[in-house]
């Protein structure tokens, strides 16, 4: 009978495996983490381009933008790590710090060009 047949557990489902709705379930905090990693890779590429093609305003602007974005998300983690801002404000920190960063970028850009 069925009891005699050995049963076999399925190996654990990996995060997102067989999960058609996973992306809509992905929350702001995780996007913040993911985009910080992506921006880190972008910085490597843009930094190289910046050194090869000197004085190209497009590359300078992109590099400034990506570095500021990366720094804003990094500051958020530092603030949360040291409990300088409570974890319940983590979403507000993303928009707040990235927005602040954009203001700084605008200021820097207008003071240069």
């Amino acid at each position, binding site marked *: 009978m069925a009891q005699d047949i050995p049963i076999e557990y399925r190996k654990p*489902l990996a*995060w997102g495996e*067989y999960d*058609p*709705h996973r992306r*809509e379930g992905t929350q702001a905090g995780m996007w913040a983490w993911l985009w910080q990693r992506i921006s880190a890779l972008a910085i490597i590429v843009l930094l190289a381009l910046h050194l090869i093609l000197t004085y190209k305003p497009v590359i300078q602007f992109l590099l400034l933008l990506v570095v500021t974005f990366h720094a804003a998300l990094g500051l958020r983690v530092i603030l949360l790590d040291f409990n300088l801002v409570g974890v319940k404000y983590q979403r507000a920190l993303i928009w707040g710090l990235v927005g602040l960063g954009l203001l700084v970028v605008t200021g820097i850009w207008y003071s240069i060009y």
Partner: protein
Amino acid sequence: MAQASGSVRDIKIFRYDPHLGGSGDFQSYVLEIPDESTTTILDVLLRLLREQDPTLAFRYACRVNMCGSCGLVINGKERLACKTNVSDFPPGRDITLRPLNHFPVIKDLVVDLEPFFRKYEETLSFYEPREEFTEPLQIRPDSKERRDIGREATECIACGCCVSSCTMVHYHEDYAGPAALNRVFTLLADSRDGLFAERLERALASCYHCRTEFNCTEVCPKGISSTRAIKYIQRLALTHFKDKPRPEQPKAVPDTPPVASTDRRTFLRQVGVGLLGAASIMVVGGVAATTAVSPSLVKTSRLWVPVAPLSQIPVGDIATLMMRYDLKNGLYTQEVATPVLVSRTGSQITCFNASCTHLGCIVKWDSQWERFRCACHGGVFDRDGRVLAGPPPRPLDRYRFKVDSDLLLVEVG
């Protein structure tokens, strides 16, 4: 067939039969729901079990979100089936039910939580009194430790939602996960606890796997923030890192030398990370080296730049001639166009560098007064480049030159 208030929903449920094995797949059901706002996902499962498919397996107990048995991934997010209403999802949207991540699947939606509780034990998540008490101990509600722990942190019902939502549990085999670390946090903050040092050490090693994604906080049906707990434990490391070093534990000598076991997936991942790191270093390092370091190391090759045919240079006058050449500076090539002042008297040729020796402005030949004049600060040089007036500290610099088959060449670099 649908009533005015009723609706029909497509429900997709992950099915896995332990007798058949394999990887499992979704099975679709269609269910008519009279009132979505009073129908939980658990009600949906129970109705499907009674009305459509008696082989469906899922786990539940209390039905009132107290026991933590019915944790599922519902439409991409970990939730309790008994706490989620059908009306929580937009009308008409299909509902996808899937077992929790990171746990072996026993059947359909039922997972084996053994890894979950094993990690509880590994992180010493049990209370060990510092001393024996005969009376119940009281913790003042306004004491710092009680406020540190907060109202929610002790409410965990061990449903496993947080561990399922955490991406880092998947990538770090030894990561204790949010639930166990939250439990550890409540004990570490408790002054009655006797296992502080051991617990902290084990928890800290685990805490560094947290990437502050807040997935566990987002999904917790009890509103617990394990992220907060993990940050608290990490901050404890700041205040306790000076604690006495752990006495060296006598290591049990294994009879057989440990065999380094790395499976293919781990190996490939390590190689991948290594390659990515190496590539990053090479890109940035290579560019930095060629741009910043190499110009100072490599002897710049001196360059002979043609200026003009000798026949075009007037005798007895000073000619201002432009020379153009490419100056390589690291990866950057600069096109230089700069004037040369050529003085020709009989067979004597002198090539002056037109940059003023004061601050580098271009000097001009004033043929009426027979002077080189610098417009910037009033430097004046005579025909041989000697300083006559103004701030320049030394005579005009001269280029080395040669004449090659009637062509005047000047050495730059």
